[in-house]
């Protein structure tokens, strides 16, 4: 997935000289996860360069470059570090089109690795997507595999508005289904890792059916897509797993279609539960599919605690949490 994301940068920077990349350690070194490796060498250091450790400054400089007419693709080293940039994203980037009645806009992509599963402790594991979903004027995208990662990043770069692009770091090097005691699998053996060469895009706002099924709909994104599929297989449940891919704007048509078909729904995310994006999904499903529902919508999430270091697998919403929830919605 790292190579796919790197390729998306490469394809777009080659086509569009207005794309610039900045962030902590993204230049010569190529980023702590190596997503921008080789780009500075190829495109020069005024298009790919290291930024000071100042997330507020990185976001604000990105906005300024966007206002000029460039297309900044900025990296926040870990999503946990994004908060010094919060004011610039929330109060500025998301509102500039609106407050200037379209006179200015901010065509910027904010990339950031997010999520747990790597024993990163509480400041390298969080899933803050709900904060951004809550912001007017910000699109939020989360890929679950290399194919989509490249296509979605290209679509995000081509989008005229600010896009927060969270990359589930646990699946950078291979799919992870939550069965943490099983051997690690690389992407190489996975069909979803077949990444076409050159330019293609996966449209923002369009979900994918990651596993077709009839019994229950699981709404997920990022790493949790893999957890959902593996749990359905392990429990022998004919679940339909919807990979949302974009959480704002969410693909409501695909959600409705699936839930109306199955009549049951579980929403799944790694982030904390209260006011998490699952609450929004549950509300949408209730508003739109109430008369098709056979059972209450279930939320399966991380707990409302900081992300603990040693008890990572007790915290992580894996198959042991999703399995019983699937069975519970099927019981009614």
């Amino acid at each position, binding site marked *: 997935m790292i190579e796919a994301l790197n390729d998306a940068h490469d394809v777009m920077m080659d086509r569009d000289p207005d794309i610039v990349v900045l962030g902590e350690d993204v230049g010569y070194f190529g980023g702590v996860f190596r997503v921008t490796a080789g780009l500075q060498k190829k495109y020069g250091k005024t298009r790919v360069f*290291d930024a000071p450790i100042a997330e507020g*400054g990185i976001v604000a400089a990105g906005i300024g470059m*966007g206002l000029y007419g460039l297309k900044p693709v900025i990296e926040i080293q870990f999503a946990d570090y994004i908060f010094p940039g919060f004011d610039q994203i929330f109060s500025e980037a998301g509102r500039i089109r609106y407050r200037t009645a379209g006179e200015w806009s901010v065509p910027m992509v904010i990339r950031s690795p997010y999520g747990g599963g790597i024993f*990163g*402790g509480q400041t390298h594991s969080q899933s803050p997507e709900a904060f951004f979903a809550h912001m007017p004027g910000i699109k939020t995208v989360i890929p679950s595999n290399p194919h989509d990662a490249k296509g979605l990043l290209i679509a995000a770069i081509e989008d005229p508005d600010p896009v927060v692009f969270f990359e589930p770091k646990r699946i950078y090097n291979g799919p992870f289904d939550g069965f943490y005691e099983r051997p690690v699998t690389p992407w190489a053996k996975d069909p979803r890792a077949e990444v076409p060469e050159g330019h293609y895009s996966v449209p923002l706002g369009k979900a994918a059916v990651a596993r077709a099924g009839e019994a229950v709909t699981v709404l997920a994104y990022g790493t949790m897509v893999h957890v959902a599929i593996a749990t359905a297989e392990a429990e022998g449940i004919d679940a339909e797993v919807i990979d949302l891919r974009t959480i704002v704007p969410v693909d409501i048509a695909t959600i409705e279609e699936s839930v109306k078909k199955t009549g049951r729904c579980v929403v799944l995310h790694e982030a904390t539960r209260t006011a998490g994006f699952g609450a929004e999904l549950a509300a949408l499903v209730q508003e739109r599919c109430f008369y098709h529902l056979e059972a209450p919508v279930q939320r399966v999430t991380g*707990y409302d605690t900081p992300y603990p270091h040693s008890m990572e697998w007790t915290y992580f919403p894996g198959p042991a*949490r999703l399995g019983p929830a699937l069975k519970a919605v099927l019981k009614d």
Partner: protein
Amino acid sequence: MTDRPERRNRPAIDRLAGPPDLPSVRGANRTCLSLHVPEPDARPGDAVDFSGIVIPAAGSVARPDVAVAAAETHPLCFTLVRVLDEEGKAVGPWDPRLDPDKLRRMLRDMVLVRVFDERMFRAQRQGKTSFYMKSLGEEAVAVAAAHALDAEDMCFPTYRQQGLLVARDYPLVEMMCQIYSNKGDKLKGRQLPIMYSDREKGFFSISGNLATQYPQAVGWAMASAIKGDSRIAAGWIGDGATAEGDFHNAVTFAGVYRAPVILNVVNNQWAISTFSGIAGGELTTFAARAVGYGIAGLRVDGNDALAVYAATRWAADRARSNLGPTLIELFTYRAEGHSTSDDQTAYRPKDAGAAWPLGDPVARLKAHLIGLGEWDEERQKALEEQLGEEVRAAQKEAEKQGTLGNGHYEDVDSMFADVFADLPWHLAEQRDAAKAETASRSGRGK
């Protein structure tokens, strides 16, 4: 581009044209602008080049009275306070004139930090924990400061000041249990390794989010002043993290309220792969930040334990006299990678640390003691062996309580404790669900 839906931000050049009597941008004979992106002197494959580093002679910098106006310290922001000369002699007005017992104790603490680091780095490589960070080459920064402060003074460290805990006699076993996130970890496995916390030792919990502790140190110092206390605070930040807004918050509040705080900038010149030029180090010194905020500032050879001690003591005396904060830049070099997750050979020449012209802080203090006739190579060797034994024994003891890989801290109740002082209904429900889930996992043999 396949299509460019909107590029309206870029102003049309026509609109930039001024009134007829003013020169227009279009056609004007102006220089094309170009962006400056700082680059370090050497990259992998290049020879290490420290020739640009200006090193004033030890003892050559004047020591102002503690009570001078802040502005009188500002020339000291552009030089380097140094005490130990090339032969290891203590020279000049900053010599703190410490007795040999104190010097030996400082040497012992610095060696202990180094031995401990080596051991724990290896433990991470052996899979016993997830992460570790050494302070190789920077041992004097924390150890000498701890000895210059009072034991009751409050420290707000960043992640490379393990020397503070060592100098304050914090048990090694406690440190290791935290690193292992094991059953003996008093932080209950919650924090990334090395993110220690100990209230009794005046060592505030380390945060993974950079610079946050810096304005907190100022707030603590303000509180101490509000209450007429006698304790001062000290904060540490890296050169890279001075770019964060919290650095500005800290120095602003410290100056405005004349807070009794020492603000240390550990300039080890590297923020992971990013050299200090990206934090502004190409333009001026980090100590020079003091000038703009109107507070006292000192720039110190961070590999010279006596200079670190003397400068810290100067700033502490000043703070204790209600004369306000001091910003101290500790000029040093990160001789190792950033952490166990880092590969320094990917972005800087190999062995750059060994070539650092200000030398090794342990070797320099050792040479000084030997020069005084208060130490010798045999005693050094014996000390290293003894500390090696102590660290090994502590490791054995700590590992009895497990490691992250084998017997980590695990207690579902504790996972939900301390989110708040009490346990609201939703956390109680989640705790119960987590217990049921844990039971089901162990019931299935996981």
